[in-house]
């Protein structure tokens, strides 16, 4: 139990996927213009990361490990995650059009996102159990949501600031991102003995 709590908080705050590992930066900067869309993106990422962690865990331990094919993990994970997201989108379109309307446009964007692939690869590298894997995937998505929501709120305020022409848009966003990352470095060493 203690290990699960440590995993959860470490992936949300200390090893935040966006701000500490610098994964998933494209949706982070692409969809952080307004907080509503950022929240939808965050939820979509959380869902996909959690489910992708679970699915890839099964594929890793039931298909790759028995045949000693661990070196195929990257290509297999990409294949499996892409299929899975496609599948979920189809199910969503049929069963819940409202949900599809809200999250649908974000799902294809994160199909082969590096944060999603990254969480799957980290899970097997750390040798997590299924429960730990699930917690790591969910926490990773939650950390992403926290980061993108913070960013969206800052960017909404930046809209009203007098920024030099050459710094408008992405340049200032990257500078803000680095400052956010700095502040998250404050969590570093939280759980060390």
């Amino acid at each position, binding site marked *: 139990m203690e290990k699960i709590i440590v995993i959860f908080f470490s992936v949300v705050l200390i090893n935040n996927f966006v701000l500490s590992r610098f994964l998933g930066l494209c949706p982070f900067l692409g969809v952080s213009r307004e907080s509503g869309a950022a929240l939808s993106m965050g939820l979509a990422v959380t869902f996909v990361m959690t489910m992708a962690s679970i699915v890839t865990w099964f*594929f890793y331990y039931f*298909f*790759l490990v028995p*045949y*000693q*094919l661990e070196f*195929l993990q990257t*290509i*297999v994970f990409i*294949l*499996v995650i892409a*299929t899975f997201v*496609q*599948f979920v989108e*189809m*199910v969503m*379109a*049929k*069963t819940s*059009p409202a949900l599809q309307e809200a999250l649908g446009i974000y799902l294809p964007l994160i199909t082969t996102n590096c944060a999603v692939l990254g969480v799957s690869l980290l899970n097997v590298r750390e040798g997590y159990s299924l429960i730990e894997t699930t917690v790591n995937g969910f926490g990773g998505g939650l950390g992403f949501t926290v980061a993108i929501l913070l960013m969206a709120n800052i960017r909404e305020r930046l809209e*009203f600031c*007098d920024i030099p022409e050459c710094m408008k848009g992405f340049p200032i966003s990257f500078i803000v991102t680095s400052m956010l990352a700095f502040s998250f470095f404050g969590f570093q060493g939280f759980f060390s003995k």
Partner: protein
Amino acid sequence: MGMGSDSVILISIIVLGGIGLLCGILLMVASKFFSVAIDERVGELITMLPGANCGVCGFAGCAQYAKNLISGQSPANSCKVVDQEKSMAIAAFIGVKNEGIVKEVAVLRCQGGDGVVPRSADYTGLKTCRAAALFFGGDKACSYGCLGYGDCVKVCPFQAISRGENGLVVINAAKCVGCGLCVKECPKEMLLLLPSTSEVYVACLSKDRGKKVTQVCKKGCIACRKCEKACPVQAIVVEDNLAKIDFLKCTNCGLCGEACPTESIGRRY
């Protein structure tokens, strides 16, 4: 590894190929089971719409509007961006009668640019009209005039408005489709949607008395009523120290503009 390199390659191919095949079959089955019937007309309708996603029709974008058109939840003339011909084509496509659309073009009801109206304050706050207007109505000496910080420029989805050199905004009538987003955005209500059949409009909003207007602006309406007398069809009247044109009566003759001593009646070409 206990296996020979040949068998490793073979097993890799089999496992990866197998997973690929599995995924393919899964998606194939899923696309059969979870297929959603999409009305083909929606796609065709989307190609007929402008694709600007301006939201004037009241829906989130052209695709949403197309869906609501097909399901009959929207009148066929909600889109203001398409021209009369296209609008008729859309109505015919979904099989309803079109009530027709009135094309409109936005015009700026102010001529008080730099050199005409002085700035009354040195405003250094946020460079938006909305923020500037909060400080005693803005930094223009005329409290009715265009502030020129370009809130309308930013909101226009068709790039029809630009900031002119004289501190006012300029509307490109050829690009303007009359969506009216700028009209809603402007804190001073400077912009007016002029029916495309009308050409003459009053380019001033000042309700101050003539003497006060002349103190701050050379091109403002001073309510002298010369236009009223000049108009052969009584389409222009002065109310609250400001001339007003009834577009239903106006014949675009332009006599009011010739009579106006301050050139405060504009003409759209």
